[in-house]
């Protein structure tokens, strides 16, 4: 394996094929570190998924998933988040080319789609609560609100982060530190969509299939 060979057998300054001696570029290291953080975040979501799976049948005589979930809403939410992931990718391309307009445009569309997702989700929660399907009603609902709410909270924080990043681009331009942070943001945003794939499959689709 590449890493093992590099660390164990070959002294740093004698690396024949390395394009540069010494540690990897900051960009690579930062991305790796943030990736490890994202994986830990996904482990946390896994615990919430596991809790949901255990409690999904504990409806305590209250409403079940079949009675509460609207697949059309979920489909639109999924589309919003998926396309926002795509536009985030396009934004990354613009950042790499130091294309300011492209970056702002990509960020704007990504934000709009993320905000649309959140609006739909909040409306869904409000609707459920109005119908008496509160988090306190049953273990199933507690698990549902915790899992889906936690994901929604991540999306909210992501949107705030995106706004902050656009301010940084406006003020500082495409300096190396800003580019690294934008790289971390896109990793975060894509990871959120990956978690959502799990959410809509396990919670909504498995919840309503006959």
């Amino acid at each position, binding site marked *: *394996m*590449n*890493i093992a060979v590099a660390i164990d057998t070959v002294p740093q300054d004698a690396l024949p094929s390395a394009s540069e001696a010494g540690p990897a570029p900051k960009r690579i290291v930062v*991305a*790796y570190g943030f*990736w*490890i953080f994202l*994986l*830990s975040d*996904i*482990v946390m979501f*896994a*615990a919430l*998924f*596991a*809790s949901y*799976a*255990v409690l999904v049948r504990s409806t305590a005589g209250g409403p079940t998933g079949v009675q509460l979930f609207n*697949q059309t809403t979920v*489909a639109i939410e*999924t*589309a919003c988040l*998926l*396309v926002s*992931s*795509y536009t985030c*990718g*396009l934004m990354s*391309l613009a950042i*790499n*080319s130091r294309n300011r307009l492209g970056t702002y445009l990509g960020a704007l569309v990504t934000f709009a789609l993320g905000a649309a997702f959140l609006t739909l989700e909040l409306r869904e929660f409000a609707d459920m609560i109005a119908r008496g399907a509160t988090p306190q009603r049953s273990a199933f609902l507690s698990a549902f609100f915790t899992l889906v709410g936690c994901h929604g909270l991540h999306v909210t924080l992501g949107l705030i982060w995106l706004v902050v990043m656009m301010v940084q681009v406006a003020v500082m331009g495409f300096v190396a530190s800003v580019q690294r942070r934008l790289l971390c943001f896109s*990793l975060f945003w*894509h*990871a959120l*969509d*990956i978690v959502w*794939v*799990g959410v*809509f*499959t*396990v919670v909504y*689709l*498995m919840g*309503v*299939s*006959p």
Partner: protein
Amino acid sequence: MDASAPSEFLVYTIGLFVAVLLTATSFWTANTTLLWPGGVFLGLAVLAIAQMGIHLVFFLHITSGPESTNNALALAFGVLTVFVVVAGTMWIMADMNESMMMPSGAPMSMRMQH
């Protein structure tokens, strides 16, 4: 930015297209009567994992290339942890549930639940 093989724009676009396809298939799978119901659960799980893979490769650029070795290894460890957490939780909770299910009001039998 090297222009070898597909352009980066194309990579993202292909990823989106395949992800949309998998999502649509998932929704169809959950709602159709054409499939044997016992297989729907597994089908949805497979489609979800496939779509996560598409996201990882096309959006997050976690490939089998030498640049992503560290990231791929970290991912493998993450997946292992997720598997242990989810499978372990479900196994333990199912086992505990089973241990709680004593027939109430039935004549005391000498059968031991294991």
